[in-house]
C-alpha cells in the first residue's frame, strides 16, 4: 500500500509564503491570547494551591457542590467537571493542616451529601515550591531549545539549526496558545508534553534536512530552492507516516487514557499535528531565507 505516490512533485517552496503568513497569524493569536488572559492559567504545581478530586455516587452539578461549600474557605474555589459525577475543586490556598481540611472539606460535604462521595485524590503544593518551579520550568524549556539548536548545528549547519529551532519555538508557542485560548489550566503534564514535542518535532525536520544535505551533495549546481522542494517531496511519505503512527497512539491516549491523562494527551495531539506542519513549512523557509541572504550579500560584494 502506498499513500504517497513515489513520483510526487508538489510545489512546497512556492506555497511557503502562505504557510508563513498562516503561522504568523497563529502565533500572534497565541501570544495575544496569553496577554489578554493576563498570563497563563497556572496549575497548582506552578502557582501553589490545592486540588481535591471528588467522585459522587449520585448525579451532581458543580453548583450543588458550591452550595455545600458555602461559608467555608472553599466557597470561591474553582469547581470543574472531571468525569462522570467526578469533580475537581481547585483553590489557591494550600491545605496542609489536617484539621483545616476536615473543617472545610469533609464536614460540609458530608453534611450536604452524607457519605455518598469519595475523595479520590488530593494534591497540595506550597506557593514557595510553585514559584521555584515556574522559574525552573522556563529555564529548562529555553535550555532544551538551545540544546536542540546546538545538536542540529553540529550535525548539519548553523542555518539548518536555526531553521529547526525556530520551528520548535513556533510549535511551543502554538501549544501554549491553544491551552490559553481554551482557558485550560497549564499543568505539569502539559509541560511534559511540551518537552516531548521539542524532542519529537525536530525529528521530521531532521529527516528533511538529511535529505536536503544528501541532494545538495548529489546536485551541487542545482538551485537550493529546487533541491529543497525535491527533498521535501522525496521525504513526504516518511514525514507523514511517522507522524501518523505517533498520531494514532496519541489519539488512543486521548480517547481512552482517562481524565487524568487528558491534559497530556490533548497537548500532545496539538503538538504532533503542528510539529509535522512546522518541519516542512517553517524550517525550510528559514534555511532558504538564509541562503537568499547569503546570496544577496555575495551579489553586493561583487
Amino acid at each position: 500500500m502506498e499513500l504517497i505516490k513515489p513520483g510526487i512533485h508538489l510545489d512546497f517552496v512556492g506555497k511557503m509564503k502562505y504557510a508563513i503568513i498562516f503561522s504568523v497569524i497563529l502565533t500572534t493569536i497565541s501570544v495575544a491570547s496569553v496577554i489578554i488572559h493576563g498570563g497563563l492559567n497556572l496549575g497548582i504545581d506552578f502557582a501553589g494551591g490545592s486540588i481535591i478530586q471528588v467522585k459522587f455516587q449520585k448525579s451532581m452539578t458543580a453548583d450543588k457542590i458550591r452550595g455545600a461549600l458555602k461559608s467555608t474557605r472553599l466557597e470561591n474555589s474553582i469547581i470543574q467537571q472531571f468525569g462522570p459525577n467526578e469533580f475537581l475543586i481547585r483553590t489557591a490556598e494550600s491545605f496542609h493542616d489536617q484539621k483545616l481540611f476536615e473543617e472545610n472539606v469533609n464536614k460540609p460535604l458530608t453534611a450536604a451529601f452524607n457519605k455518598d462521595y469519595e475523595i479520590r485524590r488530593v494534591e497540595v503544593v506550597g506557593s514557595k515550591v510553585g514559584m521555584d518551579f515556574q522559574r525552573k520550568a522556563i529555564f529548562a524549556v529555553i535550555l532544551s531549545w538551545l540544546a536542540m539548536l546546538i545538536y542540529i548545528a553540529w550535525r548539519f549547519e548553523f542555518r539548518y539549526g536555526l531553521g529547526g529551532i525556530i520551528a520548535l519555538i513556533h510549535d511551543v508557542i502554538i501549544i501554549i496558545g491553544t491551552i490559553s485560548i481554551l482557558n485550560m489550566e497549564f499543568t505539569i503534564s502539559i509541560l511534559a508534553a511540551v518537552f516531548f514535542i521539542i524532542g519529537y518535532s525536530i525529528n521530521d525536520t531532521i529527516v528533511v534536512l538529511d535529505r536536503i544535505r544528501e541532494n545538495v551533495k548529489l546536485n551541487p549546481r542545482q538551485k537550493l530552492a529546487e533541491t529543497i522542494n525535491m527533498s521535501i517531496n522525496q521525504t513526504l511519505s516518511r514525514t507523514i507516516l511517522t507522524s501518523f503512527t505517533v498520531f494514532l497512539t496519541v489519539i488512543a491516549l486521548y480517547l481512552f487514557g482517562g481524565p487524568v491523562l487528558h491534559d497530556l494527551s490533548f497537548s500532545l495531539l496539538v503538538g504532533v499535528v503542528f510539529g509535522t506542519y512546522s518541519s516542512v513549512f517553517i524550517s525550510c523557509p528559514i534555511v532558504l531565507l538564509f541562503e537568499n541572504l547569503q546570496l544577496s550579500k555575495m551579489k553586493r560584494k561583487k
Partner: protein
Amino acid sequence: MIKSLKIRIAITAVVCLAALYFLLPTLIPQLPTPWNEYFPKDKIHLGLDLQGGMHLLMEIDTDKALESMMERTSNDLKESLMESKVRFRNVEKAKGATISLELTDAAGKTTLENILRDKYPDLEIVSTNPRDSGQLVTLGINNKRAADLKKLTVEHSLETIRNRVDQFGIAEPEIIPEGENRILIQLPGIKDPERAKNLIGKTALLEFKIVDDENSLEEALRGNIPQDDIIAYGLRADRSTGEKGSAPYLLKNKSLLTGASLETATVQISNRFGEPTVSLKFNSQGATDFDRITGENVRKRLAIVLDGVVHSAPVIQERISGGQAQITGTFTMDEARDLAIILRAGALPAPVNILEERTVGPSLGSDSIRQGIMATLIGSLLVILFMILYYRLSGTIADLALIINIVLVLGILAAFKATLTLPGIAGLLLTVGMAVDANVLIFERIREELRTGKTIRLSLDTGYKKAFITIIDTHVTGIVSAIFLIIFGTGPIKGFAVTLIIGLLASLFTAVFVTRVIFDYFTGTFNIKKLSI
C-alpha cells in the same frame, strides 16, 4: 553490525528471555515453591498514582534548630560565666543564631575565651563592640560547625521520621533526603493519610518518668489506674530467645525531665564487659534537675519514655550529680547506636513544614491502571494493524519487534526497580508510535532502493545503512529532551521521562537490530524473489 547471524539471533533471544525473567513476578503473581527461588521477587514498582498512597515533601527548619540550640546554650553559658566569676550583664539569645552578652570587666574577656575553648568549642566570638560600661560581645556558631549541625539535624529528623513511619506497617515506605534540608516521603497504599501526616509532622518527645512500684500493675491493667499514673508499654527483648515483646509499665504521669534537657547522647563501650551503652549528657539545668530527681528517688525505677514507649526503666542506685547517665542493657552495637540517635533526635528537634502533599486513593489508582492499559492496547493495536496494512509482511516483522520492545521496556523497569506511573504508561505508548517510525524510515528507504532496481540484499543493506543515521538523530533528540524532564520533573512526570528514555533505547535495539536479524534469517534461509514490503 556483528556479522554472524547465529550470534545475533542468540543475542536477541538472550535479551528477550532476560526481560521475561524480570517480568515474571508481575505476570505470574504466585510461583510454586521450588521455582520461586530462582526468580526475582518484586513485581513492577508502581507509582503512587497507580497504586494509591501519599507523597509528602517536607522541609526541615534547620535555622530554627540552630536558634533553639543557641537558646539552650545561652542558659548554660550564664551558669558557666557565674561559676568562673566573670562579670557580665544580659546574656541573651540574639537575632540569627547568636548570643549577645555584655562584659563589664575587661579581664572577663580572656576568661570568656577560655570558657569557650574548654566548654563551648562550637562557639566563636563574632564581634566585640565597646560600650560605656564594658564590651558587647556577640557569639555565634562557627560556620563549619553550623553546617555540620544543620546536616546532623537533617539526619536526625530523617531517623525520627523513619522510626515513626515504621509504626504504620506500610509495605515499602520511601524516605529520601532531597537537597540540603528537604525530605521526600512516599507511603504507598496508606489507609490513613491523616494520621500519617500528624505523626510525621510532630517532633519527638523524650520523657523521664518514675515507675510506680507502690501500686499494683495488674490492678491498673484491669482498668483501675491510680490517679496521676498512666500505663505505658515498653519493648523488651527476651534474653534467651532474643524475641521482642511488649511489656506494660505503670508510671507516674508527671514528666520529670524531657528531651529538651538533653545536651546529647552517645554510644560508649562499657569498660568492664565491653558492652555498648548509651551515654546521656544533660545540659546544666538538666543536670541539676537530674541530680535532684535521682536523689529523691533512690531505689525507684526511672522510666525513659520515647514517644510514649518505654525504652528502659533502670533502677536508680544512687544520686547522680554529674549530669550524665547511662542506659545499659542488652544492646547490640546497632541498637545502642539507634537509641543514641533517637535520643539525640529528641534533643535537637527542628520544626518541619510540609511543602507538597499528594494523596491518591486506591480506587483512582486502579481506575488509572485500567484506563492506561486500555489506551496502550488500543493504540498499539492501531499501529500494528497499520503496519501490516501498509508494509505487509515486513510490517509484521516490525510489529513483532514492537511487541518485543514493549516487553523489553517493562522488563527493564522491573529489573532496575524503576517506577511505572500513569504518564509513564503514556510514555510507553508514545514509544510504540516512535519505534515504528524507525521502521517506517528504513522500509521507505528500502522501497526507494528497490524501485531503482537494486537487489533485495543490497536494498536491505542500503536501506538500513542510510536510515540508521537519521534514526540515531531522532532518538538522541528524544532522549535529550526527556533528560531535561527528569532533572526537574516530579514523581509521575519523572516516570514519563524515564519510561520514554528506556523506550527509545530499547526501540533502537528492536527496530533496527532485531528486525534486521529477522530479515537476514529469511533472506538467508529461503530464496526470496520479492520482498513483501
